[in-house]
């Protein structure tokens, strides 16, 4: 998930595009046609997509860190195998998304460089720490649940390569949420301490999960343009409400309470109404000052630097083999 990029500014230059081309482009969007890599597209559309898709990719990659933290300490082999598979999926999802972004004319190296230099954003949620095993349950249930809510509409997004990547990701991700809920369920049916651990995880992850959908519609200036171009299909607030409505009964089934005294069911509309979100915290985390921002980027930088010799060696080996093959070909001729 992790479409918070859609709320940042940069779609201002539409006026400079060739009006005839722009009109044809928008007619295709209106007709629900998919835009493909070599098709003409407005610069603002391209830039919005590069930013959004690469931020989504970065989020998948950074998202491996909080969970990777628990692989060696999973409580059973079954849980360990599932967590390992989930983290591996996230690596794969990052790669599908980087590949989709590259079809818009940026290179993988540039995208990685933007992340490591701290110029690119990733979802705010991954800057929170995973303190106990219950956090792995809460992440699967809430964070992947929120991600799926956000990603399903993206399967119909107007840019073809992004939509195709999202279809694949959504198919693979439903196990992520179910395994998380299963962890929560097991803890809630366990000892009092285990249930308290699950409650503590819900208390810490609930509000950050709601923030994943991004700022309220009223403050999200670029939602309109992204909706017009069908990059985005539902607003932040609509998706957030959908998530709350789906998740609250699941939490009650676990026998847990939500850390929101204002949470109540509204009979008239059939929606769960929730209290005010602390947007100051959201902005602080997004600006780089969450509990783990520095640690996450530091871990990515270290992994990239420590892998440099492997990439260099692979390229050198391939070049050597190519030279030998060429020499043999010449000799044979």
């Amino acid at each position: 998930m992790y479409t918070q990029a859609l709320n940042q500014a940069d779609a201002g230059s539409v006026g400079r595009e060739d009006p005839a081309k722009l009109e044809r482009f928008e007619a295709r969007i209106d007709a629900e046609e998919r835009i493909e890599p070599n098709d003409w597209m407005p610069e603002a559309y391209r830039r919005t997509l590069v930013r959004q898709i690469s931020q989504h990719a970065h989020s998948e990659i950074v998202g491996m860190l909080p969970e990777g933290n628990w692989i060696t300490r999973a409580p059973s082999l079954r849980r360990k195998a599932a967590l390992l598979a989930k983290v591996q999926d996230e690596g794969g999802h990052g790669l599908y998304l980087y590949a989709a972004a590259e079809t818009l004319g940026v290179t993988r190296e540039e995208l990685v460089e933007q992340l490591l230099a701290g110029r690119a954003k990733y979802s705010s949620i991954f800057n929170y720490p995973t303190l106990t095993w219950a956090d792995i349950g809460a992440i699967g249930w809430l964070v992947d649940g929120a991600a799926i809510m956000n990603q399903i509409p993206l399967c119909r997004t107007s840019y073809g390569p992004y939509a195709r990547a999202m279809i694949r990701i959504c198919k693979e991700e439903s196990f992520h949420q179910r395994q998380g809920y299963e962890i929560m369920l097991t803890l809630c049916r366990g000892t009092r301490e285990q249930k308290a651990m699950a409650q503590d995880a819900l208390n810490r992850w609930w509000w950050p999960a709601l923030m994943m959908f991004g700022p309220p519609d009223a403050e999200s200036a670029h939602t309109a343009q992204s909706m017009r171009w069908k990059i985005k299909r539902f607003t932040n607030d609509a998706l957030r409400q959908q998530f709350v409505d789906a998740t609250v009964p699941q939490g009650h089934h676990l026998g847990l309470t939500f850390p929101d005294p204002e949470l109540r069911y509204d009979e008239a509309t059939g929606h769960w109404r929730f209290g005010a979100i602390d947007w100051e915290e959201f902005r602080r985390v997004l600006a780089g000052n969450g509990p783990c921002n520095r640690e996450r980027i530091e871990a990515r930088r270290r992994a990239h630097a420590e892998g440099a010799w492997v990439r260099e060696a692979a390229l050198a080996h391939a070049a050597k083999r190519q030279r030998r093959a060429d020499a043999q070909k010449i000799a044979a001729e």
Partner: protein
Amino acid sequence: MAERPMPLWEVFIRARTGLAHRHVGSVHAADAEMALQAARDTYTRRGEGLSIWVVPSAAIAASDPADKDMLFEPTASKPYRHPTFYTVPEEVGHM
């Protein structure tokens, strides 16, 4: 430090169903052997295929979207290429 770019490969997979290899995405790798390995890890984590092709992306020649009408429009006016264009009396039966 500017890294040397890792070559890009397009990945094609034949699913169990016996259909043709189908494009599934791309990977970066130094050579064909590593591209196959990366494609296997990235695109077949759930038994998606029985065979993988990797092709250097730079080796693919593609038609220009701007030529779409010139290339594909002519077939629209050739209904006689389809079986339904021809009349066969009902008593002749299925043909």
